């Protein structure tokens, strides 16, 4: 039987290589060896995606490679999910994700979803081409901590600004943090429209979201 180190390294390598078959195989080995499934996904899966991300940043990897890695992580998660004991110490933070109305480019949003789910957030995916009012409705309904909006076309970016205005009008802007992303969205522009942050990519979204959840919970208390 493989050692823990072999399993963890094999799992990480399979994800980085974008190899779904190998990822599922190492996940099964992990189950057989009685490893902590939750840790394997969130910690080691997260580590693997960090490697993928730094390769993406260095322009060694591009979106196709990242998608293959995300699929490999998912293949592992599928095997491990039934064995995961969720972290009961704190209520998981709720994150709403969606690509704004008029935009159907959802690669970036899907990557963020995979990363945040793997990191233990409760992610509610509204999909693509999401009517703006739906962001507000779902935020109230689910008492969300963070909203993540994505736009890949410069023509639909203004919708993000509208949603932030709608949150203000609804009187709930201070109850939820807003992150935005997508190719043409710069951090400068994000801050200028009143968003809280613009993580520079999908794995950075994990750290940013964690910080924002802590911040919003401290500022707001319960919903």
């Amino acid at each position, binding site marked *: 039987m493989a050692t823990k180190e072999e399993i963890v390294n094999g799992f990480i390598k399979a994800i980085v290589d974008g190899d779904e078959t190998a990822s599922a195989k190492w996940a099964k080995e992990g189950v057989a060896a009685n490893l902590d499934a939750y840790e394997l996904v969130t910690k080691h899966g997260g580590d693997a995606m960090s490697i993928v991300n730094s390769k993406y940043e260095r322009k060694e990897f591009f*979106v*196709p490679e990242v998608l293959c890695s995300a699929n490999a992580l998912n293949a592992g998660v599928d095997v491990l999910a039934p064995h995961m004991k969720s972290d009961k110490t704190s209520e998981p933070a709720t994150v709403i994700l969606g690509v704004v109305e008029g935009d159907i480019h959802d690669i970036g949003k899907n990557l963020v979803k995979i990363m945040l789910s793997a990191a233990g957030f409760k992610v509610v995916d509204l999909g693509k081409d999401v009517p703006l009012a739906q962001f507000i409705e779902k935020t109230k309904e689910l008492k969300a901590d963070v909203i993540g909006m994505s736009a890949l076309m*410069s*023509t639909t970016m203004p919708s993000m600004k509208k949603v932030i205005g709608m949150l203000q009008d609804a009187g709930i802007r201070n109850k939820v943090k807003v992150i935005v992303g997508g190719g*043409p969205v710069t951090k400068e*522009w994000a801050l200028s429209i009143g968003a809280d942050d613009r993580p520079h990519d999908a794995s950075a979204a994990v750290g940013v979201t964690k910080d924002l959840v802590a911040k919003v919970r401290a500022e707001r208390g319960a919903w």
Partner: protein
Amino acid sequence: MGEMTPRKRALLCVTGNKRKADRISCLDTLTTCTVDQMNAVKAPFPEANRDPELAFRLAAAAWEVVGLEGFKMPFDLCVEAEALGCKINWGRIDRHPSVESHVFADLKDLKIPEDILDRGRFRMKHDVELRLMKEYGDYLPVANQVTGPFTVAGHIFGIEKFCIWTKKRPLEEVKEALMTISEMNIADCKRALRSGAEIVCIADPSATSDILSPAFFRDVMVPVYKNMSRKIGAPIILHICGNTSAYLPYMPDTGFDAMSVDAQVDIGFAKAIVGNKIAIVGGVPTITALLFGTPQKVREAAIDAIKKGVDVLMPSCGIPPRTPLENFKALVEVARCMVYQ
């Protein structure tokens, strides 16, 4: 010697011969419709995307309302996907049509029907181009826009799936599919050129280097584009969204006349890389200057682009429909050298 027509000026500037023109050309071969233009000529989205009379009026508004020195058809990027059977969401006055469903499950399912140019809105597009040519053609050029092969592939297969195939399938199969799609683009352009269009704009927004590697661009996209430039036989502008800086060294190999670059690409940098091998067009940021800026901000951006050597003054990407008319007009004013008005 009479005054140079905008048509002649545009053809010179698009092909990198701006020094032979009397001044820089200002036209927009990308998504150029705004709500202000739609209201001015009473030809709103979504209807104007499908009704030939409204489409003609809205296309003509580029000159009649904004003063842009050329026309382009169509207004959206869904003509190819629609003709191939994708479901289209027609949008609304300030929202472009978008592709809602994909049609082919696998690379090997790809088949372009023989009569593709008689399907969907191809015919309407060419008819409107012909009418524009008849009414304005001696004075202003007409551009035929096609949706580029990679973007069409994203529409008909699903962009994520297609991206994954670029890694998991033999590269030759991927290239073959893109070549097949490019043949549809070529046939479209040939008919458009017979209808009086004189410039071709290939809009391939999905082929951005935010998504694809420069190596994939070099090994797969460049041969596909080369196939198009060899066969189309007209001045061609390629537009790709996002930061395409890493593609610039390979751009002259496409055989295209001009590359339209988005706001993330510095015009001076682009010119330094490609030299005079291919024209660089664009330069005026759609979001910071045109949509959210002021006429003064647009003028400054336009002057900056000219200083850096841009060949045609153009918005850097598709124009957001809510762009104020006065901002759009400021762009044309700079080209007309009425800078400080």
